[in-house]
């Protein structure tokens, strides 16, 4: 499996197909289980790199269930991304972090809702707001590759639409996006290319159009 620079790629499959696991492997979370295979990012082998280094190299993950810090305020949640950029993790650092992503102002422009809630504790935000915060946080990082794990999960239709357009805009700005979704139709709206996963194996790889045309795969693996 590979993702090209600048494209929007989507990873589809049923529950438990292994989508989240794939993203987590890339991000380096709980990586020692990777038994076979390599993960390369821009020619660097990151299979065994520590989580924090992978993040520093420009791979951002918006994980399932959002994982914002409920005990911190919205502002603090966003600030943490800035802190992360300037934080030196070891005395002799092998990876240097590039320029940051968006500033807080830019993020607030993107999601005006968050500015209104700047001082609210993130745990008390609505689901949609939390999702925005999670995406905003990833945008603030220096991310070349943004990985989104079911970003529409639990969101109301109009919020989905605004999240969707945010993703679209990010994609347009030249960032690479890897989107994981159960909802194949929604994903294919913005994807250039798609992979379909089942029981941990890639069963389909190709352009979004191609998948749309492939009744059988859709029927069998996506239930559509």
């Amino acid at each position, binding site marked *: 499996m590979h993702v090209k620079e600048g494209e929007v790629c989507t990873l589809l499959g049923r529950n438990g197909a292994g989508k989240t696991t794939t993203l987590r492997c890339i*991000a380096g*979370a709980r990586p020692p289980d990777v038994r076979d295979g390599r993960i390369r990012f821009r020619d660097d082998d990151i299979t065994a790199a*520590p*989580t*924090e*280094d992978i*993040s*520093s190299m420009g791979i951002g*993950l918006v*994980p399932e269930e959002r*994982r914002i*810090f*409920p*005990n*911190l305020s919205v502002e*603090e949640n966003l*600030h*943490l*991304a800035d*802190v*992360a*950029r*300037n*934080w030196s*993790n*070891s005395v002799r650092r092998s990876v240097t*972090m590039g320029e940051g992503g968006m500033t807080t102002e830019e993020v607030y422009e993107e999601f005006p809702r968050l500015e209104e809630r700047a001082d609210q504790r993130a745990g008390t935000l609505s689901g949609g707001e939390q999702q925005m915060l999670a995406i905003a*946080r990833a945008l603030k*990082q220096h991310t070349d590759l943004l990985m989104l794990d079911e970003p529409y999960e639990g969101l109301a239709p109009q919020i989905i639409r605004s999240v969707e357009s945010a993703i679209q805009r990010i994609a347009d700005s030249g960032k690479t996006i890897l989107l994981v979704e159960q909802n194949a139709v929604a994903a294919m709206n913005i994807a250039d290319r798609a992979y379909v996963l089942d029981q941990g194996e890639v069963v389909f790889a190709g352009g979004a159009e191609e998948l749309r045309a492939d009744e059988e795969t859709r029927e069998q693996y996506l239930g559509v």
Partner: protein
Amino acid sequence: MSLFADLLGVFLNGLQAGAIYILVAMGLSIILGTLKFVNFAHGALYLIGAYAGLLIANEVRLSNGLLQQYGYETVGLDLGFLAALILVPVFVFVIGLLMERYLARAFYDRPDIDQILVTFGLAIIAQEAFRVLFGGQSINFARPGWARGPVMLPAIGNFPRWRLAVIAITAVLVLLVYLLVEYTDFGLIVRAGTRDPEMVELLGIKLTRPYIVMFAIGAALAGVAGVVGAPLENVNPSIGMETLVPAFLVVVIGGVGSIRGAVVGGVLVGMVYAILVGAPLASIPVIGGAISWSAWSQVGIYALAALILLLRPEGLFGSEEVS
């Protein structure tokens, strides 16, 4: 003596009694809240702080123990009390670093019970090591004039100068730690890590160093407590454990991980104690007078803890998720 002055006196006594517990409990609580590490050896850090302070400040004559047997009748650097106050926190901070690196880290993933047991064992080792080296006797922690004797306070009368200083030092340290945790990037990372360490790493921050530093800060607080608290009593090998038990009560009363909780818990314990000992109860006709409530002062502290835990199991300022 007016009732007001009386109450003021009791308040001050309660505050000073609680101050040392606050310092010890704050470190204990931070370590338990952020690192989820149960440290029964925290009292040993108090002990180390006390002995280190004693040996830095004074020259001490030993009358038994292994050192004395091997000819070291007097030990200590004799650099003065001020030097001790400055050097001890640094020294115990370093011990905290080592403890995190070589002990706690190996036990983060093991059950609570193992953490309790291994640190309990360590506390015994520390206590016995001091007993073996310096003997079991209590050593007087002599101080220079400016840290000794009484000051005259309006309304209250004579009050030990050093106890007043301990209250002030505690207040300053509480404030510093509070600012550090609430208003610095470091504090932000630690607070975030408390809830979701993996996500912090996904953002690109390795938590190893913030954790080790946080642990060492907690340790240093216990060390400070040792060097400022021991002069109020005497230095002997069992003071560590004796301080730990009430400090744990303060932590659970206040709520794990909460600085505010440690402060309120410590003050509460100090106040209950001072009230049971002091005048207010005795001057109330029905319950005072005939019965000496002072005999109940220790019982009162434990009863308070039990009561609060039963009514509010997560402690006064604790959040439910921690346990």
